[in-house]
């Protein structure tokens, strides 16, 4: 199973990411450091491609995840919603080496969905009267002010899924779904790293989270760091409930 047989399954993330080039627009799924396509991010770091535009809710955090690409000075522009807890991004934003375009998180998600769904633009009430609306069309619809927002697309999306089949059908685990299905729709090529690769049919049609036509390349990556940003726990029940 490899690219050579016309299929979607690649042996390594480096193979699957042979299309990397300078200046690419890359969407990266995950929320903070959770649900990241860790192996793909490492492969991008290894390849050293530069001038990247990273479209991701955060751009890594605490020096990890996509922040590694910032450390490597591979990133020119970040389109995101939240950059707190990311000293590398803060530093490069302040010294002017990285541009940052902030979006309200829901607008960010909807713009990516629009990019994947062929929607030319949409009106949202989010952001009216704020810096987000500056320079954008405002329109009253049904008695409420709305901001006009445009779709987001990318050359490449990298996502992590819990299970994937050879046709690219994916299932995500818990809150690691977040932006990944949307990004897969909105990129010319989507590479999915899956914890477990299965045969077509192993996932029931009703259980597919992301249909395979949105995924061009699949790689099985069994080991993930699964970094936890804030490990909050409670005592066992009986030992005093939280």
């Amino acid at each position, binding site marked *: 199973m490899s690219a050579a047989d016309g299929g979607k399954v690649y042996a390594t993330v480096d193979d699957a990411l042979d299309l990397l080039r300078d200046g690419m627009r890359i969407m990266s799924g995950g929320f903070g450091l959770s649900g990241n396509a860790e192996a793909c991010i490492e492969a991008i770091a290894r390849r050293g491609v530069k001038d990247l535009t990273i479209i991701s809710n955060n751009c890594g955090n605490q020096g990890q995840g996509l922040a590694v690409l910032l450390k490597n000075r591979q990133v020119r522009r970040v389109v995101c919603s939240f950059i707190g807890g990311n000293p590398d991004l803060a530093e490069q934003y302040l010294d002017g080496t990285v541009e940052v375009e902030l979006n309200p998180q829901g607008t960010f998600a909807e713009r990516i969905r629009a990019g994947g769904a062929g929607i030319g633009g949409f009106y949202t009430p989010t952001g009216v009267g704020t810096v987000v609306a500056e320079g954008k069309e405002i329109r009253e619809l049904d008695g409420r002010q709305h901001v006009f927002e445009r779709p987001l697309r990318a050359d490449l999306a990298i996502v992590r899924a819990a299970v994937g089949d050879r046709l690219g059908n994916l299932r995500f685990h818990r809150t690691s779904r977040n932006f990944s299905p949307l990004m897969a729709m909105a990129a010319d090529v989507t590479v999915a790293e899956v914890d477990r690769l299965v045969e077509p049919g192993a996932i029931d049609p009703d259980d597919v989270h992301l249909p395979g036509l949105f995924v061009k390349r699949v790689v099985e990556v069994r080991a993930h760091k699964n970094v*936890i940003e804030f490990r909050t726990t409670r005592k066992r029940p009986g030992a005093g409930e939280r």
Partner: protein
Amino acid sequence: MSWSRDDMVRRAAAEVRAGQIVNLGIGLPTEVANFLPADSDVQLHSENGLLGMGPFPTEDEVDPQLINAGKQTVTARPGASTFDSALSFAMIRGGHVDLAILGGLEVACTGDLANWTVPGKLITGMGGAMDLAAGAKRVVVLQSHVAKDGKPKLVAQVTLPATALACVHRVITELGVFDVGGDHFVCVERAPGVGEDEIARGTGAPVRFG
């Protein structure tokens, strides 16, 4: 004697009605969950893609891929659901979240809210704050009554960059509970021992006492 942090959080928890879908902002509002009855049929929404969020996990329940919007590990209650961010914000923007309890930097008596950035300070981004403020059916802000320098945080007009306009319904501070009234605040509850004078002095807009 003004309310303690816990008093404020407990008072905010009293805003929650049976069966509601509630989103709790990062920071102090997150703690509201601790004051909801364990058998509550309230469902907590976390905008990173979880409805029916449960308490923090026990050590052996920790799942790195089950987190809240503050990136803390959490659990899923029976009947929980997970979904992508487009659907999660469709819930918020579409008015399907009954109540958002958010932190605040400034609230105007017009309902305008500023809670995402302070010019000159390190920018962090608005995350889901603008969507929640603009989209939730009811927005309650949980914040201190005045800033550390004594400047009022309940004002006639926000001076900081806005998060959303005319969105806040109620503000809970250590001094009491305040509804927005257009050109004034309405004090609907005072913390024990807090006088009307003290409130009026600390508020940057007219306050009516109900």
